[in-house]
């Protein structure tokens, strides 16, 4: 399995460098915060993805193996 992009939304400040370095996978919303077009990084974009991760000034973006998260989820809504 390839790697996937993950973002810490609380940390992200909307600097937007990731979208500049990886426009194939990341766009920005009206306020400058990233919108992922896809999170799975194809091999030919891996280098660009690494660069985008390294460029994030607040270390909000990272690459992860999809299997690293197997959490059953209670995320239909916010409250439990």
């Amino acid at each position, binding site marked *: 399995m390839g790697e996937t992009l993950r973002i810490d939304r609380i940390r992200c400040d909307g600097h937007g460098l990731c979208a500049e370095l990886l426009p194939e996978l990341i766009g920005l919303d009206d306020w400058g915060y990233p919108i992922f077009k896809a999170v799975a990084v194809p091999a030919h974009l891996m280098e660009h993805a690494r660069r985008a991760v390294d460029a994030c000034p607040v270390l909000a973006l990272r690459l992860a193996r999809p299997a690293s998260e197997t*959490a059953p989820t209670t995320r239909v809504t916010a409250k*439990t």
Partner: protein
Amino acid sequence: MELITLGPDAEGLATHRQRLGPLPGMPADQLIAELEASGLLGRGGAGFPVGRKWRSVAERSSGGAVVLANGAEGEPLSLKDRSLMAGRPHLVIDGALLAARAVGADDIIFYVGTEHRAAEAALRGALAERPADVRGRARIVQAPAGYVTGEESAAVHFVDSGDARPTTTPPRPFERGVRGRPTLVQNVESLALAALIARRGHAWYRSLGRGQAHGMGLITVSGAVSHAGVQEIELGSSLADVAAAAGGLRGDVEAVLLGGYFGGWALADEQWRMPLEPHTMRAQGLAFGCGVVHFLAARTCGVEATARIMAYLASQSARQCGPCLFGLGAIAAANRRLAGKTPQADDLERLIRWSGQLAGRGGCRHPDGAVGLLQSALTVFADDFAAHQRRRCLTIAEPARVAVA
């Protein structure tokens, strides 16, 4: 009535025991199996299977887990949790004790909304009636007012550090919660139902319900009905049943808000006979959620009612994540302009676009819930929104009556 009391007073321990008998001493595994077989889904809003949640904490616990009984109830249209805690505190405590046994917890926290005074007093009084070994493991923590303070990571965060904002997940509380321990965050009604199922068995619970539905639960009915308030229903009851039990509708009703502010609008006519039951509702893109049923009078403008809700939800953002903070703020502003029939040229178009952009883009699911409600409004009140963009309103103007805390 299993969960609601008719009188104003909290049920004491003697009455509680007399009515239900002692808590059964079944082993943890069997308890969890009963809950799984019962099909009980969580009643805080997410509707996650209760048995599976207990199992996921039990699997990670070596005796030092935490049970957080969630009675924050920040949903403005919901009253059922505070009513339950105020009336039947011992049933909630029973559920928490069972959960503690099932998941291997030595710390029980009752997380109660700070404004729910009667509920807190009842729980405090009920705990005082319990033996020292129970009192020693249990404590009450006041949940700060607000919509997201009851979100599970926010609840854990507050107990640990006094900050009731959600945290980045994973790890989720069942993996690493209060003081880093596996933590079961469970709504108080779910716990109360678990305490009934433990006594009577899963077959009893599944024998309840109308039509194809199984089980029972609490809902809060409000809006254009004669008697608003908490109702105990068999799952599978319809809006018609609920309205009748509330003394009937007051005037015509066009739309109904189901599941609370994280739920959505539906056309009352279309859903009048729909079973109020999580599975059916989910299949139709609706949410049972925390059991809110709010009837909107036909003379009330849906665009205005939605604008008030969006303003509230925007105000309740924890202001940590850009898409939630700025996105919900912009949505609330555009909706407000539309409601006031003073829109900018592309307000409706932007609302539609933004409603599809925010889900999954917050640290918690606050933006997801908010845009879910907005999307339902854009569908149910589509003609009205279009009219408002043209500076018209299809409803005979009268201020909306959605109560916003």
